[in-house]
């Protein structure tokens, strides 16, 4: 019997749950335009998990990295949800570096 997978599964559930929370607050205060930085952060975490000897810690860092990669793709949808009034909308957001030089989300239609 091996509790490793059960523990990792349970911790994954908590990490995914927390992912919903940080996506909501991240979009509210930082805007969806931070998504490239979030995805890079997630990739760095996944990459660094390969240099951790402890299996539990390596798996958890990998899962956290994966939740950041997934969350980065959710930021744009979350921005629409807050604009539609389903979540609190905050006009003054912390701008992402080089935001002006990138063309993203220029209109209401996909």
């Amino acid at each position, binding site marked *: 019997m091996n509790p490793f*997978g059960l523990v*990792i599964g349970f911790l*994954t559930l908590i990490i995914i749950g927390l992912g919903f929370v940080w996506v909501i607050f991240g979009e509210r205060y930082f805007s969806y335009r931070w998504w490239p930085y979030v995805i890079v952060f997630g990739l760095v975490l996944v990459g660094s998990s390969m240099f951790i*000897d402890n299996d539990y810690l390596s798996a958890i860092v990998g899962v956290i990295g994966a939740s950041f990669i997934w969350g980065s793709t959710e930021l744009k949808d979350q921005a629409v949800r807050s604009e539609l009034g389903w979540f609190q909308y905050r006009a003054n957001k912390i701008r992402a570096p080089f935001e002006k030089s990138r063309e993203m989300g220029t209109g209401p239609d996909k």
Partner: protein
Amino acid sequence: MNTIGLIAATTTILTIWFGHVLVRELEARISRILPAILICVLLGIIFEIGAWVSVQPAISAASGIIGITFLWDALELIRQEKRVKIGHTAANPRNPRHARILLQYPSATTVDIMDRNPRGSPYTQAQIESILHPLEIAAEEKTE
């Protein structure tokens, strides 16, 4: 090099993506969601047992993550139906269950209101109404 983290991360992304698509497509097509919920719970339990009996850490971790996402998907099937009822997800009128929802819940709609890019400012109620009922709004404007 320890590949456990990479395996766990890959499994997490693939299962979240798969679960996302599965819940959305399945809920829109099936006329009864209870059997799908029970199958997801059953698969979740089977994979968790697989994680418990597996000796290989990588297989145990992957099985544990797959199992937990199936259990999560069971819950998401219920939440997805609620989203249809409140109009946050488009209803499928060809699905008898969704057709009933469209009749019973005035907030339910066949318009996918999420199919847009962020525009940088909140929508007014009138703007949301014009997205959800473009023909009715246009007719009202014509009569005025």
